[in-house]
């Protein structure tokens, strides 16, 4: 069947089997292998993308179910060579080691800050509770999301966002 999904603002149309999962539809699109898949059982969160702005586990949604919806993947975060504040925060606070969980963590964090620009550490931990990181112990991830929240707030107040990468 032909399925047409808006991925990162661009219409992607492909003839697929109805059983194709969203994560594979995305990863088979040239240039979009940033979305990872790990557990395949909706437990690890590596495959999280945004569907109409809300984080979802793309290993547990059929691509066919996403026709007519907007999907955002980790590749959409960087704009014009500028990292998104959550990416910058992960860099500043050393919130990744192997990087396997990172695309899902970044998208989950992005959705959290879009809904709640000033989350507490506890709220951040709840938001990422569906994502497993085997390396960092989470402390630096929470700290990175706080970094992003603080810098986004500062940017809004005109202080500008530091961009040393």
């Amino acid at each position, binding site marked *: *069947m032909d399925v047409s999904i808006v991925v990162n603002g661009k219409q992607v149309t492909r003839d697929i089997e109805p059983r194709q999962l969203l994560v594979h539809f995305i990863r088979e699109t040239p240039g979009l292998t940033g979305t990872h898949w790990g557990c395949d059982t*909706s437990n690890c969160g590596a495959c999280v993308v945004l569907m109409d702005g809300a984080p979802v586990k793309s290993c*547990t*949604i059929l691509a066919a179910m996403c026709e007519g919806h907007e999907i955002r993947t980790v590749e959409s975060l960087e704009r014009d060579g500028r990292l998104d504040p959550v990416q910058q925060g992960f860099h500043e606070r050393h919130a990744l080691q192997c990087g396997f969980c990172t695309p899902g963590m970044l998208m989950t964090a992005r959705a959290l800050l879009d809904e709640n620009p000033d989350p507490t550490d506890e709220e951040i931990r709840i938001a990422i*509770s*569906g994502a497993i990181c085997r390396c960092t112990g989470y402390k630096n991830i929470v700290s990175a999301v706080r970094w992003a929240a603080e810098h986004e707030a500062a940017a809004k107040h005109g202080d500008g966002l530091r961009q040393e990468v």
Partner: protein
Amino acid sequence: MQTPAPFDYERATSVEEAIASLQRLGPEARVIAGGHSLLPMMKLRLAHPEYLVDINDLAELAYIAEDGDEIVIGALTRHVELLKSELLAERLPIFRDAEQVIADPVVRNRGTIGGSLCQADAAEDLSAVCTALKAKVVIRGAEGERTVGIEDFHVGPYMTAVRDGELLTEVRIPVRPGAGSAHEKVERRAGDWAIAAASAAIWVDGGKIADAGIGLAAVGPTTVHLARAEEVLRGKAPSEDLFAEAGVVATEDCSPSADGRGPVDYKRHLAGVLTTRALRRAAARALHQEA
């Protein structure tokens, strides 16, 4: 890589169309709502439908509203909406208790109340919640609608009263004065299924418990309805001793099996402790004494 076996897919644009599709496609067709129980089962070949009828576009099935002396919830209402609903938080706080501990926030963006009840997994938290609240469900087919009590809805493990060609459309919860409700769960880690969970509702009238409802999750082949404990509570004044007595009945009337989540005696113990805790919190809410 896990992928379901091949099937054909249709997307319904109305309840009538979904029912017509299910009737036309016959017993090999399944509804897909959030897909967060069905797709994992299809990946594992525990379910192998030949056709999926996607009901995610049926916005008319996504609502939480008051209707006379009932609160009505559309089958396609997602966990996240149940969690955020101020109406439920005020009138039926048991839902917010449960939704804070059902899966994780990302899964909650997809899973629905209809899918949870139709899955009829004994560990499903919302089945225990609906049992405690003495909910009714509305099932629609080509011949029209019927309303079934939650007791008659779950007919066995993974089996419900929904027949081929039918759709669960609504959950109806009676609202009575003097109500208090709460859900208590113990899980191995954040986002996991319950080792055991207890849902309790009580209705207080003139200082006495006029009626009570208790449902347990994950401690039997189906959701456990604690009818005998409800009987113990009826007509008595709420007290710590009474709730402890109901807890003892819970340990006796559940039938857990041993698995990776724990041995039988531990689960029985939990069923008792959680029943007592849920009743204590439900009573505090009914009497407006919650700390």
